[in-house]
């Protein structure tokens, strides 16, 4: 897991890749809109967003498959808008791997080496393939056919194929979309340690917030072709710019209403039947329609404590946590996450049972809706 809150130290270093107002239009559709971003050497950066948000377009502009309609893309300080993919020092792990079906594992992996001119010696190629297969923990698989490999193994082959040319940036397009949950988790950990070990810049595209949160140094949240917020996973989780980011990064409950009062760092939102307090988020203004965002784990559920009177609607056991869906007469449904320790204190709650939900004002955040 990522422990540091500070982004990779970039002091005095030039970005390895840069988007400058990069825009991509397909007819009337703007897939990427004025993207400005500097990617630092050695960092693990993720583009996170729902499908159609422009994250894949951004990645493809880096790879050279898309030429920006306006603005520019830079690699290592050079403007590369018109440099074709085969001349760029970046390699990609494709969404469905795009492994060459008519080649063995070794031929797939050595493909990049074999495209170099002058071509490396056969012995050198064999050695590098062996080395790379060991890196992705598939030693001895050289002569296997692609279709003999499982999904997870194919993913490693795709990774090895992209790594063998020692790219300046490794691009990963939803690389784990086809894997089952457990395997995905394993691959995430492996990818992260691989990135640390190799020191290569990784740029990942994903719609899976958990994946982005657990692996990235920085995450770039996108919507409708634009970057909404860039930050470390913790920054995005603790200080989302708006409701969209809070909703995309982790789970949250939102209660909408106008911001009626501001007292220093705390604001009050008028909600149906009551008012709710929370820390003021970025750029919120008095009188504006805002959302009070409360993370499910920040709410305390008790049998007879302080707070809102709610009715337990549903209970989902998640192992280390239990998720309760509760209903409040005025505020509607919302989620509460109770940890094992919390349950030890209060016991469990049965569906249909009344209970009390409470959170501290500092635990809630007042966010702009957009």
């Amino acid at each position, binding site marked *: 897991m990522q422990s540091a809150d500070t982004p990779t130290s970039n002091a005095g270093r030039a970005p390895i890749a840069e988007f400058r107002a990069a825009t991509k239009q397909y007819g009337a559709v703007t897939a990427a809109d004025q993207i400005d971003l500097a990617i630092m050497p050695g960092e693990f950066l993720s583009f996170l967003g729902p499908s159609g948000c422009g994250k894949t377009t951004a990645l493809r502009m880096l*790879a*050279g*498959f898309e030429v920006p309609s306006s603005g520019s893309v830079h690699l290592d300080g050079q403007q590369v808008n018109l440099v*074709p*993919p*085969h*001349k760029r020092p*970046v*390699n*990609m792990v*494709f969404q*469905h791997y*795009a*492994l*060459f*079906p*008519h080649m063995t594992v070794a031929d797939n992996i050595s*493909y*990049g080496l074999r*495209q*170099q001119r002058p071509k490396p010696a056969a012995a050198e190629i064999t050695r590098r393939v062996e080395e790379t297969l060991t890196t992705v923990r598939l030693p001895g698989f050289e002569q296997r*056919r*692609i*279709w003999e490999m499982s999904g997870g193994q194919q993913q490693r082959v795709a990774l090895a*194929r*992209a790594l063998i*040319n020692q790219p300046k940036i490794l691009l990963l397009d939803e690389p784990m979309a086809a894997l089952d949950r457990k395997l995905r988790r394993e691959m995430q950990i492996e990818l992260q340690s691989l990135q640390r070990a190799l020191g290569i810049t990784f740029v990942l595209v994903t719609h899976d917030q958990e994946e982005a949160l657990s692996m990235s140094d920085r995450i770039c949240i996108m919507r409708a072709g634009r970057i909404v917020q860039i930050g470390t996973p913790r920054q995005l989780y603790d200080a989302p710019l708006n409701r969209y980011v809070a909703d995309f990064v982790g789970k949250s409950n939102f209660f909408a209403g106008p911001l009626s009062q501001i007292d220093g760092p705390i604001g009050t939102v008028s909600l149906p039947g009551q008012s709710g307090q929370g820390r003021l988020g970025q750029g919120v203004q008095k009188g504006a329609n805002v959302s009070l965002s409360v993370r499910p784990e920040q709410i305390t559920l008790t049998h007879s404590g302080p707070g809102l009177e709610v009715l337990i609607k549903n209970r989902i056991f998640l192992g280390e946590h239990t998720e309760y869906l509760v209903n409040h007469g005025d505020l509607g449904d919302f989620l509460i996450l109770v940890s094992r320790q919390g349950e030890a204190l209060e016991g469990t709650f049965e569906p249909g049972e009344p209970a009390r939900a409470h959170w501290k004002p500092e635990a809630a955040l007042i966010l702009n809706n957009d």
Partner: protein
Amino acid sequence: MSPKLINRLLLAPAGLWLLTMLVLPIVVVVVFSFGERAQAGGYVPAFTLEQYLNLPARWKAFQNTLTLAPVGTLIVLLIAYPLAYYLAIKANPKWRTLLLILVIVPFWTSILIRSYAWIFILGGRGIPAILEFFGLEGIRLINTPFAVLAGIVYGYLPLMVFPIYVSLERLDKRLLEASADLGSPPWRSFLQITLPLSLPGVATGCMLVFILLMGEFLIPAMLGGGKVFFVGNALVDLFLQSRNWPFGSAVAVALVLVMLVSVTIYMRAIKRWGNGRDDVSLM
């Protein structure tokens, strides 16, 4: 009824068809080929190798067939591949269906009528007349191997285009992106990815065209004018004109054997080349 009996009953129509349409005629032809010609033509039972010993008399027909069929197949392939490539990869998908139909349209007319058109195109008042206009006099096209090849290319093109088109169309375009991403310029991606993955289509197309060409008689008859004739023409001649059934049968048996041998060699080559390539079906 036992499942075994049901199976047999279900296979009976196909079996009967094979027996009457394939096995019996071949047996008849083989039997005839050892017989003698009756005075008025036809067949008299006998057992002689005379007909087979006489085969060199038709050597020219075999020579023409065995050169023009492979050469024709190769030319058809060389023209069909770029066309199929364009249709499957380069053409605007909006127009693709229309373009494909255009490839098939000639099939809607009898090959006989289309060959007549070629007689005119290649004949004295066709292309040679145009060439004459530009000062190139005395060029003869009709009744030459060139005319036969032109007819072959024209007639057999769709048979080659379609299998290749299908294999190119199925090709995952992301493989080409992956190839480019790994440093391969487009022309090398073509040689390393597109071409190998479309070879099953090429193999199928070549097989179809070659086998049909080996038995071709209409195109050489019309565009070769008796000067460029195939084994097929020799057969028509022997059976219908000189009514020498035994000798015709011997020629037919020889053609079947030549075809079997060349197809076997071809299949072997494909198998060897495709060894371990079970990822793509070859035929």
